[in-house]
């Protein structure tokens, strides 16, 4: 079973490479922007401290060049938007390719284009629903409670309330995730998005379990490798570690789709 999955993943090396390059490009865009915006510091001792994300260097710089902050915000927003759009596109293609067993980049694009709008709709409605839940929760909470400092004796209920809101939105997220898989599968058979959500409830245990499992693996690997990277005097090793984690997280994602589609 594990071996079969591994083979299947290895067979997808082209898609994995594609996604990897996509993430690399995102990193690079920030890297170049950082280099570019700090270029006025090229002759300063401070420049070599930027990689430490030194708060003093960055604060002094932003205070002296207030426009940089705005630029970062703009680029950040654009990158996030682009990333969501591209990933929505790729996800649609990846799922279809996995199910059909077709592995070409051409198919990835073709299927991506085919299901893009439906997947985007699902992603956007996720955002809308989470906003709605949070907004409603705040409204109800403060209507009942008024001033929490007067209403509660301690801050404990406040903390628990925020944590349960977070948990709730995670649950909704998982639902949407599963639904996007189902949409793909069911659409092929002519079914609707709503139907996909209904089916999703049936698989929710599996989805939650898988996500928790992969998240755990990723966290462990990440912590381990990053730590190793930090300790390593060789910068190239540190760099490789980062890339490895990047690649591995994509690998895990493929495996996730793969298992759910079984």
């Amino acid at each position, binding site marked *: 079973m594990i071996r079969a999955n591994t083979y299947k993943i290895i067979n997808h090396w082209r898609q994995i490479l594609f996604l990897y390059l996509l*993430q690399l490009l995102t990193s690079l865009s920030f890297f170049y922007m950082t*280099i570019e915006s700090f270029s006025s510091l090229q002759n300063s001792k401070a420049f070599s401290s930027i990689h430490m994300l030194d*708060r003093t260097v960055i604060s*002094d710089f932003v205070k002296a060049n207030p426009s940089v902050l705005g630029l970062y915000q703009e680029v950040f927003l654009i990158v*996030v938007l682009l990333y969501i759009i591209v990933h929505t596109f790729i996800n649609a293609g990846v799922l279809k390719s996995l199910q059909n067993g077709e592995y070409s980049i051409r198919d990835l694009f073709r299927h991506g284009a085919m299901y893009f709008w439906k997947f985007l709709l699902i992603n956007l409605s996720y955002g809308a629903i989470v906003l709605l839940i949070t907004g409603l929760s705040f409204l109800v909470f403060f209507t009942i409670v008024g001033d929490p*400092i007067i209403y509660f*004796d301690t801050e404990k209920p406040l903390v628990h309330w925020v944590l349960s809101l977070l948990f709730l939105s995670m649950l909704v997220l998982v639902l949407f995730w599963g639904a996007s898989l189902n949409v793909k599968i069911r659409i092929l058979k002519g079914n609707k998005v709503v139907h996909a959500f209904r089916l999703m409830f049936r698989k929710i245990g599996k989805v939650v379990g898988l996500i928790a499992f992969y998240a755990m693996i990723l966290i462990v690997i990440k912590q381990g490798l990053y730590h190793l990277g930090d300790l390593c005097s060789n910068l190239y090793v540190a760099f490789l570690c980062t890339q490895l*984690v*990047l690649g591995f997280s994509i690998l895990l994602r493929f495996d996730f789709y793969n298992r759910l589609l079984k």
Partner: protein
Amino acid sequence: MSLYPIINSFCFCTIILSWSVGLRGQQLCIQNVTNQASVISNYHISVELFPKDKKAYGTQSLSWKNTSPDTIREIPFYMYLNAFKNLQSSYLKGSGGEIFGRTLTNNSKKEWGWIEISKIKTNKGVDLTDELRYIQLNDGNIHDQSVIQLKLKEELLPGDSISLQMEFEAKLPYIISRAGYSKNDYFFFNHWYPQPGVYEKDKNGDWGWNCHQFFRGTEFYADFGDYLVDITIDRRFVVGASGCMLDRIDLPNNKVRYSYQANNVIDFAWIAYPLFEEYTDFYKDIQIKMLIPEEHCMMAPRYLEAVKHAFEYLEEHVGPYPYPSITICDPPMHALRSGLMEYPMLITCGSFYNFPEGIRTIESLVIHEFTHMYFMATIATNEKEEAWMDEGFVTFYEDKIMDHYYGKKSSLIDFYGLKSGNSENTRLEYTTMNNPSEGTIARPGWEIKGDYKGLIYAKTATMLRSLEGYMGKESFEQMIKSYYIAWKFKHPKEADFRSHLQQHIRDHVVDYDINYDRFLDECLHGVGQVDYRIDYVRYLDLEDKKGVYGDDEDKAYQYLATNQKELHIGITNLGTLNLPVELLCTYVEGRDTLLFLDQWQQEYHIQLPAGNIEKIELDPQLKLPLDVNLNNNSFTIDHPTVSENIELFNKTSKLTSTFVDLLSWLF
């Protein structure tokens, strides 16, 4: 996953605390012996709390000694609880009924606070109640009752003492700031009894009363005294107070009387709350008492550790802790407005349920308040007129202690890769002020309208770092240690500190022999900031200068013989505060030249014999953190290496990939 730290820290807290209580619980708080020379007022106060009315009724016998050469005809008393009596008090006036996030316009009668003297007589039985009159010498606001003056029927000659018997009522407000009551019978009593002002020499050397009205942004100033305070209260309360508990007597009706003694202190505060958990620990023989609500229990080990660090550091670098105890109170969420304050031997801090360990504001704040036991309680400067003399010094030592025990670059924040040092944070609080040049540091609290904290806490602490930088660590420490010995249990003013510093510089070796008086003048009374910048670094060809110039033939010849080139460096201060600064030139061959630019100039044009320059750095050891932009302080010929670039890329991609991971799990 997030549950483990909670469980862990909770267990740890219970184990450690029960251990310390079990082991040392029997040990008593050992009272310090008063140096009677410094004690001017002596108090014996008996007070009973009536929780339903939010009131305490007290009797106070006070003896006050006239240590001045003047004959005293009246004594003013602080009546600071009256600041919370109505919106017309000088404290609340101009707040528009909105203060520290609280709306006061809908206050019920119960929510206001006041203090009233119902009777006052001498120990010979002469009734003086009719001789009391509210005065408003600062602002003439007739509605303000924060200072009351007692006209004496008999003159008090130099060296004589007067004993007064007083009856008073202290009604606590629903906490606005510091003193007050809150939910579940939380009571914090400070400035709760009539306390005389200070009769002293002012800046011009004239004797007079220093007894200001109560304004926002000002605190307390009083004489040293010995206090004996009996507190009668319902048995359900957990009580904390300045000083040592001498006795506890059970009374009928489920009441109890605690007797506290605090010697040689400028004030006495106490706190009562039935929901406090109480823990006792020790640093050497000093009792540490911790009062903390159950929901903050997991913070107790952090508090205790931090306070012990502060004890250790300050005893080593400033002087011995002069009192027998310290009580640390962590208020519950609803009483947070009484948090982050300092009174002799009693401090209040602030925490939050399950607050992350990597964010050490809890430690930083408790260390700050504890350091006030040195600068405020012992070296009792006038917080109202010269706030920088306690808050600045306290912040300076808060930075030192935090950085020493928790790491220079991560003492304040070490949270998922985000790091910040405490002293780094302090400097940034000053540099990121809307206007770091705004106003002078040395002026009364009520005159400062802008960023009080940035100016009084951060800029002063950063200035003291420079002072230490130029004097040298050892010399600075010696100076502070002798300052502490010379001025403990006294009220030093700016001039006293400065003459102490001058004396020290005359008698001791300092790293740089600059004009320290001018340095302090610029920093404390000047308006402005520092921002030195390296403008240019140039080699000047000397081909066309060949020949012999002036009388110094050797020098000119040397120039020609070495490189036929000359190095020119331009430095400008973009700010207006011109302070001395170091300049270091490092040559590729390994040698370096350190110059000290102490001409207090705005611009420097420096010529050096040429050589292969590797880098030029202004203030290489960060002795002048007052410089608001450190990035323009250096010039390196070498551009970043490939490996430095890769490291930067590595960091960027780590950050981006973490974020991208998050996104890719979401979508």
